[in-house]
């Protein structure tokens, strides 16, 4: 089958399939409905023929959504441990979905987040009583989700029987829609309304979803009346979320609303050092400062940059230094590849040497023109993907051997004449930004 399809078709539709043999034939387990539909429409007949051929007789082949691991499920990474159900034995214990690594210990405190951190600690110690709901808001990647998980983990640490559930608002909506589709909405309601602490991330995604807002409104009221803790995060102050019902906005303000600001430099440095430490990596202070100074927007981007630096050091087997960090960060900080054209090179070189583009393209062979022309050809070879004949054509219809000669000449001159090397580097910098 593999030899009959392109790599892309094979990797997209066939490779994700798992095969299960049952008494009636072969079942191909696909990751989702979309893949099943594609397999049924495009490949099932051929797969059927192959199965018949290989087994020497007819073997029914069918495709369905599923996975072999589902039949032997591994415990979910952050699933709540099995424990006796005390608070509401009639409802199964929900999956907490908490990230174990997001705790108060791993949260780096600074001026930008200390108020939120203090409020979160209070809530973790007295869930359902102090600050209910706790509403954390701020830009993306500043630690709202981390604090939320930290509260959940602390609540569970104090009371392993507590029913705590973290859910992203998009998932809440998705679960509800599935509940409606599969006629299980009452289970959905019971599951959410039986919690001791409900943690909903990014509630701005409820905007304009009236049915979800209504369901959430009732869940919210039930939990609040039962003195169960609600923690919400959002990218902005509740009143500023467009498309959210007024009654919800007003309830969000009943507890405590706290902002998280972007981390100041020192906090960013501390975050980097702590994350590197957690990975078992020694990050020199100067490197941490270097990264923190250049990436100021949010913590996730800091993490991405750090991962890249660590990956490079791990690949080369060398310790992290300023040099290795700069090399790795060139990727992270680099802007989109600039489109450098031969025309642009000619214009820039002509301006730099104060000559006209027409002269660059002319037959004139005086050094004041020929040298810039050679530099421009050399830059065109380095910065564009045009073939040498194409570059020759663009410089007044010259042969590709002339271009080759120019490139060799400039390479040689850059090694012997500082001035030529400086000119070349200056132009390279100008052209690549």
């Amino acid at each position, binding site marked *: 089958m593999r030899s009959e399809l392109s790599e892309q078709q094979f990797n997209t539709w066939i490779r994700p399939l798992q095969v299960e043999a049952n008494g009636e034939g072969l079942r191909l387990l696909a990751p*989702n409905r979309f893949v099943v539909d594609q397999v049924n429409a495009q490949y099932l007949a051929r797969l059927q023929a192959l199965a018949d051929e290989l087994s020497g007789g007819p073997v029914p082949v069918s495709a369905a959504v599923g996975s072999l691991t589902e039949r032997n499920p591994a415990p979910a990474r952050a699933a709540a441990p099995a424990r006796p159900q005390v608070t509401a034995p009639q409802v199964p214990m929900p999956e907490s*979905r908490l990230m174990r690594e997001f705790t108060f210990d791993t949260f780096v405190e600074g001026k930008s987040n200390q108020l939120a951190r203090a409020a979160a600690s209070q809530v973790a110690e007295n869930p359902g009583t102090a600050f209910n709901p706790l509403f954390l808001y701020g830009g993306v990647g500043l630690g709202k989700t981390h604090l939320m998980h930290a509260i959940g983990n602390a609540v569970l640490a104090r009371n392993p029987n507590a029913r705590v559930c973290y859910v992203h608002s998009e998932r809440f909506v998705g679960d509800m829609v599935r509940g409606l589709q599969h006629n299980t909405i009452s289970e959905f309601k019971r599951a959410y309304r039986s919690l001791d602490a409900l943690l909903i991330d990014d509630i701005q995604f409820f905007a304009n979803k009236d049915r979800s807002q209504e369901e959430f409104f009732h869940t919210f009221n039930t939990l609040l009346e039962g003195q169960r803790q609600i923690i919400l995060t959002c990218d902005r102050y509740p009143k500023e979320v467009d498309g959210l019902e007024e009654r919800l906005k007003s309830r969000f303000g009943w507890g405590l609303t706290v902002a998280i600001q972007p981390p100041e430099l020192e906090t960013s440095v501390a975050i980097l050092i702590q994350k590197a430490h957690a990975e078992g990596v020694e990050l020199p202070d100067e490197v941490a400062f270097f990264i923190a100074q250049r990436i100021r927007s949010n913590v996730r981007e800091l993490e991405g940059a750090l991962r890249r630096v660590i990956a490079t050091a791990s690949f080369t087997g060398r310790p992290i230094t300023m040099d290795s960090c700069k090399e790795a960060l060139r*990727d992270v900080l680099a802007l*989109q590849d600039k489109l450098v054209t031969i025309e642009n090179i000619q214009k820039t070189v002509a301006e730099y040497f104060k000559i006209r583009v027409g002269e660059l393209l002319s037959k004139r062979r005086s050094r004041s023109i020929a040298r810039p022309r050679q530099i421009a050809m050399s830059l065109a070879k380095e910065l564009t993907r045009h073939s040498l004949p*194409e570059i020759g054509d663009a410089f007044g219809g010259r042969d590709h051997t002339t271009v080759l000669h120019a490139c060799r000449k400039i390479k040689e001159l850059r090694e012997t004449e500082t001035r030529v090397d400086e000119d070349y580097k200056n132009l390279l910098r100008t052209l690549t930004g």
Partner: protein
Amino acid sequence: MTPESTGQLPLDIGLDVEARFDTYYAGPNGAAVAALNAPAAPGVWLSGARGSGRSHLLQAAVASQPAGHALYLPLRMGLPATAVDGLPADAVICLDDIETIAGDADWERALLVLYERMLEQGGRLIISAPARPADAGFELADLESRLSALSLFRLQPPGDAGQLEALKMRAEARGLRLPDETARYLALRLPRDLAVLFDWLQLLDARSLAANRRLTVPFVRDVLRAEGV
């Protein structure tokens, strides 16, 4: 002959080389290949110009995983956002050319949900785009921010010597013998773009098979001339 006319040729003459790590010329991109071979959570973002081998590497990452534990989705195919619904969140999921769905609200939300689920269940997301997340054109700041936590690698062009090596490696993987002088001849006359060079190699493979000729410089010169180069 214009650069456009030496662009990728619309050929359909059999299979191309299997996309695996060992058929990719790593050159200056060894760290990226290593990171894809054993992707750390939450995953890897691979940027680079057209022809830098992003699709090859993503498919190699899928091929290196056991069956059923990895999936490759070429987003330029125009798949609907439902294509990622319910994908196994503990798997390796490779999304090629993510910029093609940037700005599509349904897709961006679907990816946000997928990312959250993968973070929870320990999956790895491998994404390719011409640029970094901040320049991919996402509308949803929450998605852009999450994807900026991936390890970013920007594929570097192989350079002249590397290009020759890559061309020879590709020929070898196709079972072709490409003499040094022929490789140099091609590199001097064709656009210095690996994707284009590989397309020409595919064409030369077919022509040499049809003519029962080896890839000598005179034979290659004739083919190039016949194609207008």
